[in-house]
């Protein structure tokens, strides 16, 4: 396992390098002198000089990249123009909020998606299967920011059941925190539930055809035991991998969800940074999500090997 992880990490190095080149190149897309843009409205000559020095703007581009990458490797992703905080600190501050939202959304997605997928595969070709498929496809087609707006209108404005926006750290008041977060988590979870349902259905369909399921049934095992203990356990192997890979979708979905429900998380940080032309923060976020995504990919591969021991000698 260790050798496998080592090999995967080695393969990931060139990818991380390319992501860093891409993120570095972003600032050269800016029209005009990026330093003038980075220095903000005041254009303080001292700030401009310091930024030029820091990013070695008078040096050739490869040297500039090396200076930038060297800083990034030491955790220095620059300073936010707006808050004057180090970018990494800013990201670390907002991340727990988004992680809570993501975990709740994923829980909702798993609770809806997996049973729906199992049922749909078991009842293949019946109206249950048809209905589950239509609901899943609708879940994939509905823009989650619109779903959020509609839920605010119905649940908060008309019925007054749940707050429409805000945030409460889970450590301060867990119940209130969950109450505030449940609607955004549902909005974020619907599309994921649909994806999980479709993957679970197709995995279950192929497992249900296999010999050991026929054997289990022939032994006279009760149907729910065949379904849960024999079929689902095996069908879950690819589904677990999919869950790990949904991380990117969760983060992207969080951008819009946090915007609608004014949740002060990672997604809102990106949008605020974009509108404040806080380019160092945008770059830092793309770099961090990229690296995190690669780490999740490696974890997905590792999880797949743990769950599917036949893979481990390959």
């Amino acid at each position: 396992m260790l050798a496998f992880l080592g090999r995967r990490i080695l393969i990931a190095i060139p990818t991380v390098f390319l992501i860093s080149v891409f993120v570095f190149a972003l600032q050269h897309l800016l029209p005009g002198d990026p330093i003038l843009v980075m220095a903000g409205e005041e254009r303080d000559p001292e700030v401009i000089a310091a930024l030029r020095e820091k990013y070695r703007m008078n040096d050739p581009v490869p040297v500039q990249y090396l200076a930038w990458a060297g800083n990034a490797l030491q955790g220095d992703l620059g300073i936010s123009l707006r808050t004057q905080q180090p970018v990494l600190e800013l990201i670390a501050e907002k991340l727990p909020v988004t992680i809570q939202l993501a975990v709740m959304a994923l829980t909702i997605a798993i609770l809806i998606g997996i049973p729906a997928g199992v049922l749909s595969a078991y009842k293949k070709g019946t109206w249950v299967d048809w209905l589950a498929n239509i609901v899943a496809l609708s879940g994939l087609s509905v823009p989650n920011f619109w779903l959020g707006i509609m839920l605010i209108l119905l649940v908060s404005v008309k019925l007054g059941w749940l707050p429409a926006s805000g945030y409460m750290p889970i450590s301060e008041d867990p119940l209130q925190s969950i109450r505030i977060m449940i609607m955004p988590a549902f909005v974020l979870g619907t599309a994921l539930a649909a994806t999980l349902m479709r993957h679970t259905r197709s995995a279950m369909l192929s497992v249900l055809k296999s010999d050991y399921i026929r054997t289990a049934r022939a032994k006279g095992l009760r149907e729910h035991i065949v379904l849960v203990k024999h079929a689902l356990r095996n069908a879950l192997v690819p589904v677990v991998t999919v869950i790990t890979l949904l991380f990117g979708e969760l983060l992207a979905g969080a951008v819009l969800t946090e915007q609608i429900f004014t949740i002060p998380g990672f997604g809102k940080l990106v949008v605020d940074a974009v509108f404040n032309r806080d380019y160092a923060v945008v770059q830092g976020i793309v770099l961090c999500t990229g690296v995190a995504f690669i780490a999740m990919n490696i974890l997905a591969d590792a999880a797949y090997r743990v769950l599917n021991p036949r893979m481990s000698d390959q």
Partner: protein
Amino acid sequence: MSVTATSEIEADPLPPRQRSRAWAKFRRNPSALLGGVIVVFFLVVALLAPLLPVPGPAETDWSAVRKPPNAAHPFGTDEIGRDVLSRMIWGAQASLLAGVVSVLIAVLLGVPLGMVAGYMRGWTDAVISRFTEALLAAPFLILAIALAAFLGPSLTNAMIAIGLSAMPIFVRLSRAQTLSVMTEDYVESARAIGIGHVGLIWRYILPNIFPPIIVQATLTIATAIIAEASLSFLGLGQQPPAPSWGAMLNTAKNFLEQAPWMALYPGIAIFLVVLGFNLLGDGLRDALDPRDT
């Protein structure tokens, strides 16, 4: 090289009989047909926008500000008295254009790169594959937001950003398809009779990897339309006063209590058109892929 020799091993991806079988399968699939009907409906509405009997999308009527749906304005009016139906009809142009153009960008850049990677293998493949992985590592929407932010907010830049973000899917798909087609006998035979690289790629590989690319493109249009609406919703796509469904929702969220219809209809339109492309894509996959039943 004789003409007969070439035509004998000519590889049509879907010979007539198979093509009609695919079409028959597609026709028997009610949800695929429904998808097709929805997509055609929105295309027709978008194309005929200038001819339809509705007020101009920027025409304001100060005596009818935030009016609920009525006979004169079937979908109501917005915060400055513009007709919501008219803005939705014109907004369909922006959405469909963004969906189609960004997927074209992704296909035109991604497919050649993927084919070259799969055909050449070795170093070329390694470089292109690492490059694709790097692009895939950033979540689609975050990458599009970052690109739109650096390129500046506009519909054109949103389309470029979405197209570039969607490109890696097509590189991966066409690379994998090329690798599998390369092992086929007819490619071997074509190579044996001395057909050059360009001829091989153009006449033997491209037509054979096309069906899955069409399926993926249809499904990606759905994703691209949502992405454009999302970017416009965030203020990074179509700029006001030009109409776009995402931008309409952005304004509507400020008038949720007073004018809920402003938020209702553009959302339904996005949902329907995306559902249409998803149904169509699923139907095409079922019809074109013999393995998927």
